[in-house]
């Protein structure tokens, strides 16, 4: 059985997920992903065509059961201080971030 997720594809996925994996974790994760793909492949056998609809929630949302959208208004959040103090590093009410790296996109 050929692995759907090769070592190279796995490395790309890890990069896209912004993960630095602890030593020894990669092989386990890749093996499990490939095992999961055995199940996902079952979907290939479902008789679907362009006419088969899709379901986003299972239950349909119509004008009858959907709330009216809220008014788009700005307001001061009452929890501003509580929210800000969760940040690992703050300065004068701003969240501090390290240098933002830049790379050329493919």
């Amino acid at each position, binding site marked *: 059985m050929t692995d759907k997720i090769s070592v190279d594809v796995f490395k790309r996925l890890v990069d896209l997920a912004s993960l630095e994996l602890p030593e020894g974790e990669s092989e386990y994760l890749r093996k499990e992903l490939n095992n999961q793909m055995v199940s996902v492949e079952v979907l290939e056998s479902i008789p679907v065509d362009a006419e*088969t609809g899709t379901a986003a929630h299972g239950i349909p949302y119509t004008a009858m059961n959907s*709330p009216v959208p809220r008014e788009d208004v700005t307001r001061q959040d009452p929890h501003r201080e509580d*929210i800000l103090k969760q940040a690992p590093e703050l300065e004068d009410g701003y969240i501090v971030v390290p240098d933002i790296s830049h790379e050329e996109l493919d």
Partner: protein
Amino acid sequence: MKTYYLPAYAIADLIKTRQISAVEVLEETLERVRDVDGRVGQVDASQAQSKEDLSSVHAFTTLADEHARGQAEKIDQMVKAGESPGPLAGVPYTAKDIFTVKGIPATAGSKILSNYVAPYTATAVERMETAGAVMIGKVNLDEFTYGSSSESSALKPVPRNPWDTSRVTGGSSGGSAAAVAAGEGAISLGTDTGGSIRQPAAFCGTVGLKPTYGRVSRYGLIAFGSSLDCPGPLARNVTDAALVLQAIAGEDPRDNTAAVVPVPDYLAELEKDIRGLRIGLSEEFFRVTYFDADTGELKENPIDGEIKDAVLSVAGFLAQLGADIVIDVPLPHTKYGIPTYFVISRVEASSNLLRYDGVKYGFRTEQPFEDLRELYRKTRGAAFGVEPKLRMLMGIYLSAAQFDKGYYQRALKARALIRSDFETIFDPKGNYRLDALLTPTTPTTAFPIGGVYGDSVLMQYSDQLTVTTNHAGIPGLSIPVGFDKKGLPIGAQFLGPDYSEGLLLRVGRAFEKVTANEEWRNRRPPLLPAND
């Protein structure tokens, strides 16, 4: 008699009639927690090892005793002043640690949120408070709800099944089910994305209700699969589950998927008879698919005979009460439930997990870093466990344009077919015209701790009888229906059309009444003294 194992409705009555105070009930419950729960789950703590550890429940991640005392005192003051304290007055309950409660840690069972204190409160929790319930703490779960045994939590020790503490509680609302079964609160709020209320309820011998998608607001939940997540109650009896749903259901301007559908009077429905209701049985729910790790193949087997017999016995009781049992109901797309779930839930999970970055809140790496990208990688690599990592990687693989093989679109179509199966059997003008479908909740009873964990495919397949409910968005009620020869609880579930919670609760209540004198109804987890 101790109050900690009384039904919620009985506790509320005792408090409202001033036979006992809310503070007294709370203190008895907290004492119960101290007696049976053992160490509270913590990040980087050791797994259960000592004899005491191995025989404790370990449901909790945070004990909110001071918060609870404040709420209980408020209820007592209202009673004293002759004010209405609410239908759940003074009832102690727990919330799965995926609900936010202002000022209380919300960990989601993950190291990445281990230092997060919620600045706001979930709608369901707010509504429980309005109904008079007293939240005594947060309970453990699979990390970010990703799992079916609660073993993936980063907060150790993980919960243990009160009926046999060598076995799992199920998951992901394992702490909720264990707490309720062990008398640590009369009720618990859980969430169900692929079976996470019903499966642990079945494993721990409690009632668990997954409402219709959108029946209960998701505001204040830490998100997993946003098109699947449903908050709902776990309780020791059907009436208590109805009371909780009554309190938490309904539209919410803070959640655009909370449906604008009137909330019926669930309690008024409860005691009605079930004569003439059409209850279906489907062969698709009496066989199971499992992953053979040795061969790498999916195989199919009949379900555990003891579970099948227990479910058929439920059908027998319902027939005695005048229900029409309809057999051989076809649900041909049931077998696609888990493959579809592998796609949809992973894509949604990976999207929801991108927000955890070590910048805005939560854990930040202690290792040195040069720039923002390195901060992200080191923080996320160190603070997510293997389950979130698997879900992110799979979600990206299945949805990123560069790898796209059309799996996501195909899964959405499979979801529509699964939904269509249920619409067909519940169609009032169709061939089957069912009011409800009766199925086993789980393919097995609670498995040993460590017995499945690590095999992510086999673990996922333990949800195969619950997951199609989530795809379809319909409600499901799991109730205890007996025990296997090992003394472990067996659960059966009733599934119904959209917003049919009232009818499902009524059928569950009818079963409770007709089996009230059965021997198994008097059993208690070994942790509970017989005279309590």
